[in-house]
């Protein structure tokens, strides 16, 4: 099975990535797998969707009429979680939401997106909200 992996989080970057991912999925006629990852090292993680948010996401996906799957993963590195799902399903495309950052900010903060870009075996579509 091949498909599109969307790195998703309940925020504007996730929404942008999902939108682009759905457009691609319809165009290619494939399924989408949404990956919502957390490092799991804090009590509250805003980028990890609650059950309610997953519910409304599912409704949105059903409405879009695309074959889909939502995975919530936990591990040391979010990029690794996205990449390992991409590898597992043999993804033909990975979609990520990218935030604007200055070179200094990049130096200090590192980047999940960068690690996905560099580590993926397939094309990566990076979109901005």
């Amino acid at each position, binding site marked *: 099975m091949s498909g599109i992996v969307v790195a998703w989080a309940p925020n504007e970057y996730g929404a942008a990535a999902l939108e682009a991912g759905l457009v691609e999925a319809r165009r290619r006629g494939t399924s989408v797998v949404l990956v919502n990852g*957390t*490092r*799991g*090292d*804090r*009590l*509250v*993680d*805003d980028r*990890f969707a*609650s*059950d*309610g948010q997953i519910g409304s996401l599912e409704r949105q996906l059903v409405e879009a009429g695309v074959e889909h799957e939502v995975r919530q993963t*936990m*591990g*040391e590195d979010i990029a690794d979680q996205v990449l390992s799902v991409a590898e597992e399903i043999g993804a033909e495309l990975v979609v990520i939401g990218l935030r604007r950052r200055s070179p200094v900010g990049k130096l200090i903060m590192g980047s999940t997106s960068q690690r996905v870009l560099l580590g993926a075996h397939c094309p990566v579509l990076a979109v901005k909200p």
Partner: protein
Amino acid sequence: MDSLGLLWDGFQAAFTPMNLMYAAIGVLLGTFVGVLPGIGPAMAIALLLPVTYGLEPVPAFIMFAGIYYGGMYGGSTTSILLNTPGESASVMTALEGNKMARAGRAAQALATAAIGSFVAGTIGTILVALFAPALADVAVDIGAPSYFAIMVLALVMTAAVLGSSRLRGFIALFLGLTIGLVGLDLNTGQPRLSFGVPQLADRLDIVVVAVGIFALGEALWVAAHLRRRPLDVIPVGRPWMGRSDWRRSWGPWLRGTAYGFPFGAIPAGGAEIPTFLSYVTERKLARTDEFGKGAIEGVAGPEAANNASAAGMFVPMLALGLPVTATASVMLAAMQGYGIQPGPQLMTDQSDLVWTLLASLLIGNALLLVLNLPLAPLWAKLLRIPRPQLYAGILFFACLGAYTSNLDPFDIALLLVFGLLGVMMRRFGLPVLPLILGVILGPIMETKLREALTISGGDLSTLWSEPLAVVVYIVIALLLVVPPLLRRTRPGLDERMHEVIDERDDKELVER
């Protein structure tokens, strides 16, 4: 009315800008550690002990008092918004509080918790001011044998009555007593359990033991269970209450205070039982069937009971030198660090300290209300701190504290040993309170025992020569014998407590 006059003097001493600042720092720090589950006021005070040795005792204790009350308050925020009670005392608050928050009434739940804490803390502190001097007056005449018996009672109660199993309680207690034995025998000058290590001959520093068990133990335990599914936090604005909330809250506040204070004053170990009793009472008295769906009474009552028992703890601590909670033990250790001898004579010898402390408890309580109502959304943000960063900070302070007490690297190694002990205790479910009480009360108990035996010339019968001692020993015997018998004949408090807790549809307590 004499006490109130002294309390007024205490107020005047506490109302200096410096003291107010320490009260504010304490309250903020206390709420900080209270909000984060796993870190409590006992750990915070233990970590701060070395820092405060440079201070006068009065400002240091003002700060500790603020941390203690702040910690009690902070715990309710986490229970309500996250359904993760940081300590056993806030379990009951979480029951209704989280349901209220889910129903969109988080602001009212936080408000009734904060104002209830304030009411209960204020009444409780005034009761301490009235009862502690009276108790101390009586306690001055208590002889060494009776004193010894009372301390045995405190230890047996914390080890046997609390917690899931007596065996675990007693294991923790004897570990603590053993740790308390290390060092030179005060009478004969012989080294005990020092294994020829010169640093061990000089009694273990209580800072190292407390920081090792509380801070390092918790940090290592968290490191071993680092990744957990994040919880849903309920967003909240500024807490407030409507008129009907006020009308429904004040009764539970007062009833909760009435339950909490006496239980805090006896060594029945904190607020578990009074919060439960308050919850059950409010549930029975409730006219609506809102209980189980987020009734405000179910937050107001237990939260008041929790804080009243936190105040009640000061009665035995100030009047008898007898700590009944982990935080009180660490505070007592701090007193010893200042060379202040805890005991019945404290109220007269250090009356300035005691009355300023009580006054600053009242001030701290008012500060808590002023700070916490507007700051609640900010406290909720603390829950987003990543654990690695948070515990790295705690470890830093722990090592710094252990090192600065003697400037000896040996203490860091000792800290690690106690940290490992702390992890093992968490792993095997041993309660920490009996251990800490054992470490602190052990040496004091030994002194009293030696005193009694020296007076009687080594005759053991002196231990039950005083009527009070005999009564206390009978109480101990009853405590050990009656609960198991009761449990066999009818379901006791324990099971009912667990029934209530099991009713929670969301059982995701922090696994510890």
